[in-house]
């Protein structure tokens, strides 16, 4: 499976259609959960490390990230 696919169990979901590859979510994630694909689009690299602090979602300028609450799963 390629790392850019959305996996049902991921705590964080990036909308590739909205992401503009600014790098903010990647730089400020306290747990280094996020990385970039070849185009700079954010991808979820280490989902198990996510503490659902939602800072990536709050600081994304493009409304491209959602952190799912545990009840959603």
């Amino acid at each position, binding site marked *: 499976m390629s790392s850019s696919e959305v996996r049902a169990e991921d705590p964080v979901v990036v909308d590739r259609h909205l992401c503009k*590859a600014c790098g903010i979510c990647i730089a400020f994630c306290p747990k280094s959960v996020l990385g970039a694909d070849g185009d700079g689009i954010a991808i979820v690299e280490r989902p198990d490390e996510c503490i659902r602090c939602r*800072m990536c979602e709050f*600081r994304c*300028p493009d*409304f491209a990230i959602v952190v799912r609450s545990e009840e959603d799963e």
Partner: protein
Amino acid sequence: MNTHLRKYFRQEHLPHIWCPGCGNGIVTAAILRALDRLGWEKDRTVFVSGIGCSSRAPGYLDFNTLHTTHGRALVFATGVKVAHPNLNVVVITGDGDASAIGGNHLIHAARRNIDITTICFNNSIYGMTGGQYSPLSPTDSVASTAPFGNTDRSFDLCRLVEAAGASYVARGTTYHVTPLTKLIERGFEKRGFSFVEAITACPVYFGRRNKMRTPVEMLEWQKDAAVPITRAQKMDPEELAGKFVIGTFVDIDMPEYTESYERLLREHASDRGGG
């Protein structure tokens, strides 16, 4: 997109026009989270903006929206609020829109203490027209109209609005997004004129010319240069050079304009009646 926020957008207009890493989207989402927490209804909420990159925000929002002329958002907003005092009226404005061409309207809206919440997206520059300096550009910063550095002193707009008489004045940043959202929420709740300055990034026209090459570096700057008000009160002016203070500067109750006006109308209803 967040399922709670989706209903507030004109989805068909996304992705938005703003550049990668532009802070306008961060402030816009903070505004939506704040009003969502208060349960504001879309039909009872009006967004009014002037002209600029930031002033395009209402175009993406599925509310009653009014995109007006440069610097005049508060004039239109005052008209809306006086005609319909029960509506929630929010002004979205840039640092140039609010402080340069619109500075006079800002002073008088604050002086009247009319129940409008103004969110000033301060990106330190005129973004839309290519990076000319604004009254809020830091001294010595480089702009298209100040290639060797800006010799002007920079305006502290929060102090201006405080002096003019607003009920609520606060400043936050897009880096400190959770406190920013709370400041906006408090501004929304307040009866009277509320002013929230949101320090935000124009990576394209401010950052690149001022040694911040990426959106991430611009957020690092916000993180490092922001001083919470409680700490700032214990610091000397020299220590605060090159920094800016964040937090709540004013949160007081004072007579609100549309309430005073309605009372006047009630008191004189008999003078007018039957006549």
